[in-house]
């Protein structure tokens, strides 16, 4: 998995490429946390994410909680159908901002 972090002035954009599973989720978590250290608003681009495991969901949950504590926001974009299913199934679509 690869994550490219781009500073887009008002927010940070994280382009995630690859499966987010047990092995790679710490990387996503780290990327999300360091993005929040720079900006209040973070957009996570899931265009190239074919699958997310429960560990990956945890990283997103931590990101959401961080956004809430900082008064910022975390948005998910370009979420694929499979990932959207997972988010729906786990109820994460209820707490995350998804575009």
């Amino acid at each position, binding site marked *: 998995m690869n994550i490219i972090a781009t500073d887009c002035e008002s927010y940070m954009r994280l382009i995630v490429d690859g499966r987010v599973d047990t092995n790679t989720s710490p990387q996503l978590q780290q990327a999300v946390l360091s993005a929040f250290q720079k900006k209040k608003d973070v957009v996570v681009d899931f265009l190239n994410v074919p699958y997310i495991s429960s560990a990956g969901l945890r990283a997103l949950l931590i990101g959401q909680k961080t956004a809430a504590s900082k008064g910022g926001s975390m948005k998910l974009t370009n979420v694929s159908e499979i990932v959207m299913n997972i988010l729906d199934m786990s*109820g994460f679509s209820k707490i995350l901002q998804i575009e």
Partner: protein
Amino acid sequence: MLKNMKIGIKILLVILLMSLGTLLIISVNSYLQMMGLTREFQEVNTELGDTASEDSKEALQEQMEENLVKLAQKQSQISNEKLIRLRSVIDGGVAYLENLYANQELFIGHDLPFPYETEDGVACAKYMLAPGVQSTDEIQKKVRLLSNCEYVFGPDLENNSMMDNLYLGTHDGIYYRYSRSNLYNPDYDPRLRAWFLAAISEKEGSVWLDTYQDYYGKLCVTCAGKFRGENGGVEGVLATDVTVQDMLDEIVATKIGESGYSFVLDSQLQYLAHPDFSQENFDKSLRNHIGEDTDVLKEIRANASGIVRADLDGTESYIAYATLEETGWKLGVCIDVDEVVAPSVELKQKIDGITSGAQQMVSATLSTVMIRFIIFFAVVGIFVIMLSFAVSGTITRPIQKLARNVENIGQGNLDVRMEVESGDEVGELAQTFNRMLEDLQQYIQNLSRVTAEKERIGAELDVATNIQASMLPCIFPAFPEYSEFDIYASMNPAKEVGGDFYDFFLVDREHLAIVMADVSGKGVPAALFMVIAKTLIKNRAQLGEAPDAALAAVNDQLCENNEADMFVTVWLGVYEMTTGRLVYANAGHECPALMRAGGEYELIRESHDFVVGGMEGMPYTSHEITLYPGDKLFLYTDGVPEATNAKEELFGEERMLAALNACAALRPQQTLHKVREAVDEFVGEADQFDDLTMLAMEVRAYTDTSHR
């Protein structure tokens, strides 16, 4: 080849090559130079010999030529002087006779005897008259006048051994002779003799006549001179016979070197004297003794003295010659050229001898040097071999020791230490080895400690796994006393301890609680979280709370101290055995599959609530369906649909449903086995990525309440 050699041999070779090679080069060089020197020496010597012999030859020849000419001149001079003296006797006699004639009245004289009247062998005066001459008074008067001559002629004959006699003839026909011999020829007329005529025809002074052999075969020559009377007219001729044989013999007897000899030629170049003169067939003409080159004859004839080189009697000879002015004879001295050159040849031989001797000495020295070189070579060679053995020994011995020690280490003995004996590379190697050994020991210690730690952790994890497994209902049939339903569950964790769990337990006699959950993450943290979640859920469910209330309570409890932000997806259902009513809540968990009796498995899709433990105060909703006998319920975690094969394809819900439908008629236990097999087949060689947890329940009948 060099690669495979032992170091010792290599060093030995290198040292040998270096030292002996250098030595060899020096030796060969020196030897070659010495050879060159010898050759040069030889050449110089040969040249020296040649030059010296040539120079000496020339010098010798020159000197010899000079000497020969001098000798010839000297001898001719001596002989000439002798002849001059003899002629002076004639001249003196002539002067005396003229004095007699001029002063006839002063000399009385006496009568003279005839030859036969004298004694033979005694020197005395005698006279005779030519045939036809009368002994007149006038004649007798002249005879008496001539008798006075004996006072002069006597001492003359006495003092000149060469002189045979003194005699005179007058125009009157008187023949006077002073001699030892008394022989006479009565027909002898002096006035007709050659000596008389030659002297008369000579203008002035005396004259030498040609040689002749006397009665005894001795070579003689006559000297004659005319004398005049008081009126100036020629009165007669005085002559003497000189035996030159002795003089010539003396000349010939002169020893000249080994092969040289002297000879005398007359003015016609006819031999007068020669060592072989007395031999019968001796050719008197010089012409016939000389080879092709006749120019030398002209040269001899023309010059007063000199030297020529000619083939004389078949021998290359030097001929030095000088003229006797009196007679015009040539006195010759000849010598073999080879003899002249002999000393120079000898000198050359001597020099050559010395040269070859020196060369032999040089050669001997050279071979001695060679032998010394060889001995030196051998000694140095042995020394070098010993030295290199010693040196290579000091290098290789520690290496061999090192090798032995390393072998020892290889057998597992790490307590071995190299003895560092030297400060060189081998010593450094030994030190490095020692350091490596220490590091190795420390590393092994650490490793064994870590391994022990790991083993301990592993063992603990095993225990944890066992505890986890033992926490889940694992005895089947789980409720043998209940025939209303059949339930079976299995869990295969991806790691030793997983985050999945299932649970089923009786809330009371009629209610069965079923739990299928999946903790986010894996490993020990997930297991610990699972234990808490399971316990809390069970506690709440056993209180008889509705699933939504139970999950809401558990959620709040889990969120209280959830520093790790872990959460769990939970499907909690409560089945009422008497009515078939199933009340359940789904907190972010996969949709269960339901098969109505005689139908196919289908997913029960409803809106999902948020996961448990994720966020405080989340609401949960309960759903309700009714199960009938023959209905089958299949619960699972995401490990089943999300099982991944090597091509990264997901197993998916469709394959799962297909696998379930393939075993629709089977009992829960067999159903799980079949699904498991289908998943395994799909995954193939790929790693099991997630926990694989499944639960199946079949409703067999409702509880018959009428029997109670």
